[in-house]
């Protein structure tokens, strides 16, 4: 479910803006660090910390977009990849400098720790919370993109930038805001998931593959698909690790390759290329 949160943000920036942003994990990590710091240093409770982190990261994201990313939209893939890698390295260094190389412990609020009985049995409250948030967010995003005017302008800007501009949509602003949204979602995922996926300087590197897998298998820009793929991935991964631990991650990677072999563009609905 966290995977969904993280990946959907990436699907937004990648699919909608066609920019290879491998540094997505950086924003998640930033969100996580900010939340932890807010809670530990300033004593702000969990939810407000998360909210604060999300807003700050979104702002930072929009700034970065405005000044750095924007210059590279037309650049070849290699440049975009290098830029993302450079960004990842710089943030890892900054993270390590300020926070040290170890994982950050996060003190979950009491209403989230411990089991919760939701009718079919007792589950850890934290997990239930994550699932609930994920589901609600999925709905919210779907509603926003499919139904709202802003969502329409995003889709327009992506399908045909010039026409969208001709019709009067301020594409630059649209991109900046969607990037902000994408990074906000990443920060949300990072913060909420801080207990499950610990925040440490290597965060962007290690989890990058997983976000990329979800986005690639679902298809770029396929936000609804990202939900199902992330879900499927989580289920398969957990099951495999539970029953066949020696196999580890090999199986899931092979599975991903098999899927992509059949559908090289993921499950995205085929719009004009």
């Amino acid at each position, binding site marked *: 479910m966290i995977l969904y949160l993280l990946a959907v943000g990436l699907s937004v920036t*990648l699919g909608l803006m066609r920019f*290879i942003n*491998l540094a997505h994990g950086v924003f998640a990590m930033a969100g996580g660090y900010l939340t932890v710091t807010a809670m530990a240093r300033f004593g702000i409770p969990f939810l407000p910390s998360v909210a604060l982190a999300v807003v700050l990261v979104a702002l930072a994201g929009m700034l970065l977009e405005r000044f750095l990313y924007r*210059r*590279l939209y037309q*650049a070849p*893939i*290699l*440049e975009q*990849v*290098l*830029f993302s*890698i*450079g*960004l*990842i*390295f*710089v*943030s*890892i*260094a*900054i993270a*390590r*400098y300020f926070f040290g190389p170890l994982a950050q412990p996060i003190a979950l609020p009491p209403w989230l720790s411990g089991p919760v009985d939701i009718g079919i049995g007792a589950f850890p409250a934290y997990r239930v919370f994550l699932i609930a948030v994920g589901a609600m967010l999925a709905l919210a995003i779907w509603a926003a993109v499919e139904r709202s005017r802003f969502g329409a302008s995003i889709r327009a800007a992506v399908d045909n930038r010039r026409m969208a501009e001709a019709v009067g949509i301020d594409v630059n602003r649209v991109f900046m805001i969607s990037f902000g949204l994408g990074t906000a979602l990443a920060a949300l995922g990072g913060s909420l998931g801080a207990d499950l996926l610990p925040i440490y300087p290597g965060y962007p*590197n290690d989890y*990058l*593959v997983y976000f*990329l*897998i979800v*986005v*690639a298998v679902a298809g*770029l820009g396929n936000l609804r698909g990202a939900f199902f793929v992330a879900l499927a991935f989580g289920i398969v991964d957990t099951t495999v690790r539970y029953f066949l631990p*020696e*196999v*580890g*991650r*090999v199986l899931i*990677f*092979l599975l*991903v*390759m*098999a899927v*992509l*072999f059949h559908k*090289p*563009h*993921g499950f995205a609905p085929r719009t004009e290329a």
Partner: protein
Amino acid sequence: MTSTRALDGLVLAALVAFPLLAPGYLDLGTRMVILALCAMSLDLLVGYCGLVMLGHAAFFGTGAYAAGIFALRAWDEPLAGLVVGGAAAALLAVMSGVVLLRSRRLTLIMLSLATVLLVQEAANKMTWLTGGADGLQGISMGPVAGLFVFDLLGRVSYVYAAVVLALSFLAFRTVVDSTFGRSLVGIRENEARMHALGTPVDARLRTALVISATLAGIAGALQAQVAEFVALNAVSVEFSGEILIMLILGGAGRRYGALLGAPVYVFMQDYLAREDPTNWYLWIGLMLLAIVFFAPGGLTAWLAGLARRVRRTHE
């Protein structure tokens, strides 16, 4: 335009001069040579085919492990080990190429990452074969071609690696200058048009992948033989990234890029890691950003620009 013969001569001269100028740094030199070979093999894919992939460590690592295991269990002659390493990597390329080459851009990057992780996971779990997280230890190499015993000073290692690099560079150059090589550039520039011309694009790309992997596997085999050890992080995403960075630093698709980028990177890493180990990532990150925004062609492009300006002032 500077004759490429002259530049080739320069490369050869550098290879020969290095042990004379810096005899205490042969280990470093050998490392530079091996990584230059690896980066050069990546250049074929990234620079000439235009396929951006982050999975090259998979080929390097496979070659390293294959050569290491071969030396450990079968025969410790180094040249045979090179063949085994190259072949193993080529095999991996054939198998993974089937899936990898069906995609481009993001999916390709992701799949190449998955390949590295797959190989890494396999190497990690198959402890009985690879030593797992501890790495493959206890390799001891016999003399090269039965004649040159590896000495403690690293002289034979350096010469061995340098000769392999020189020969591989010749091979690389031949491929790149051939019609095959030119068609790869065509595919990079406009794949659709190449299809329209009737070029067997997929077959060409697959061949390029195999050639690239073989060279990387040979580099890996060299590494295993020279170090007599294979670390698990030879197959890591970080290492893949490092090779890419080395190539970019020198300049991709520019023939000599890898040969320039790898030594510079290794030198910087050695120097900066000694002076300021914690901030290595920061410097590299900043350098990457600088390259992207200011010098996309890497050092070779920058030098070529300088040379052009110098020549113009002389006219």
